[in-house]
């Protein structure tokens, strides 16, 4: 993760404002936005399936990040906050969609089965479709671990569960995925 920690130069009145590596400047919310927007957008697309909804979720996450910047202590916490907000936002979307389906309204087709499907090899689409058949929590753990390469501790923080739960959920999720892909246990 690259985070710009912006130091202070000497000002014209001679007051020294040297760089301080421990500072998380308000302006770094902007840097987090610029640097992590794409990865968060991709994370949201993987979780909700379509770009338009994913953009809304990411936008909301950054708006929330901005509003709660007073609670942030460093850039890492800002990124963690944004990821958590994206995951939570995606959960809300999926919950809404579940209700919509009950009344016969279908959401946008997911990116891997719509116009972009041709760009994905058959094997990869099969994996993604199998992933979507997993329960929400298992799907989230796998995406956070195998797309973002997050540690168990980071995943636990984002999902609000214990690290042991992360490990057991991931193990079960991988096992289920293997079964769905015809790989056996």
């Amino acid at each position, binding site marked *: 993760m690259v985070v*710009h920690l*912006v*130091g*202070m130069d*000497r*000002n*014209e*009145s001679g*007051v*020294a*404002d040297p760089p*301080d590596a*421990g*500072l*998380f*400047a*308000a*302006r*770094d*919310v*902007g*840097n987090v936005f*610029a*640097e992590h*927007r*794409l990865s968060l*957008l*991709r*994370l949201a*697309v*993987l979780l909700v399936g379509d*770009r*338009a909804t*994913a*953009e*809304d979720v*990411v*936008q*909301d996450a*950054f*708006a929330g990040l*901005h*509003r709660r910047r*007073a609670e942030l*202590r*460093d850039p890492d916490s800002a990124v963690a906050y944004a990821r958590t907000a994206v995951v939570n936002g995606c959960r809300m979307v999926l919950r809404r969609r579940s209700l919509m389906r009950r009344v016969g309204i279908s959401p946008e087709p997911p*990116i*891997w089965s719509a116009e*972009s499907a041709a*760009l*994905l090899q058959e*094997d*990869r689409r099969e*994996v*993604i479709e199998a*992933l979507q058949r997993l329960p929400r929590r298992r799907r989230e753990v*796998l995406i956070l671990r*195998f*797309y973002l390469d997050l540690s168990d501790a980071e995943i636990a923080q984002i999902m609000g569960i214990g690290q042991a739960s992360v490990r057991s959920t991931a193990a079960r999720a*991988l096992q289920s995925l293997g079964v769905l892909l015809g790989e056996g246990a």
Partner: protein
Amino acid sequence: MTTEDRLREALAATAALVHLEDQPQTVPARTPRRIAPLAVAAAVLVILAGVVFGLRGEGDPAPAVSPGVAAPARYFMAKIGGGNTTTVSVRDIQTGRVTATVTPPSHSLWTEVSATADPHVFYATSAPDFGTRNVETSLYRLTIDATGRLRTRTKAGALTRNLPLAFAAAPDGTRVAFSSVTKGLGPATIEVLTVSSGRRTVYRTSTTGFVSELSWSADGRYLAFQLLTQLGTGYNVRILDTRAGHDLIRDSRPVLTGGRSYVSTYVAPVLSADGRHVYLLAAATTKGHRSIRVLELDARTGRQLRVMYEQPHTGKGGNPIWEFLHLARDPTGTMLLVVDPSGRAHRIDIASRHVETMPFPGGVPNAFTW
């Protein structure tokens, strides 16, 4: 290939289908194209700066409230809380005593408060939920009497269905400025709503981003704002001439611009009543000691003029900038107000830099206005 390998590859390939649509057009194209316009703009600004700021008072209408003429307002408002409960309280500026508590409309929360030049008139915004889009944020006019008690709480109309980020009532109370984020990623905008007619004037830029802070000059013409863009330049403080045009960049001029500024850790810019200075909160480190400062900058050049107030950073680690969350100016332009997390409010006399401290009971506010 293992299940893990297949999954990793499939996720990466699917994610790679998603690109930032606006970045290729915006980022690479900006640098070369901005050189010539910036040179022209710089030349124009040198001229305009003299006209607008240096010669102010000769050609421009006088500020609605002259600094130093009237006494600072006796009462200010603060919003405390978040999540499911918010309270707006009226407080005595001399003692910090709460003189009234303003409850939000039913099933709603207070989201922002802003004072006007009339010491008895404030505006507040309210929404059913905090930080949610697609719900209506409403505008309320709050009036208090001479003893700081609430007189009226009147709905003044609908503000927006987008998610509001910043809000500031014009000093004469006829208009309110606000910024919001719309569905999807969009250009940074400021809307100015004329309360009586509902007429809206929109100032926007093509750059994707947010406007995060707003502050009016006393004459209601200039609007300082903090712009956060996706271009990684951090927060920029600019001053918009609301009579010049509707382009947020072309019709404004920079005070502080991202990494080029010596004040690189700052929040809460507040425009002086006469529009000549910007006050803000900035973090500083001198000989290993960290502190939070209230700075006065020249609005024309961005140059630091004075340190108005300084308080050592007492927290362990973290960023001293968060010692103070907000800065407010009284409508006459003579005083500033900051509140620290230990429950104290500090009144700063702008002319003398004399500071008086008073208690601020009831928790640290997340917004206040004077």
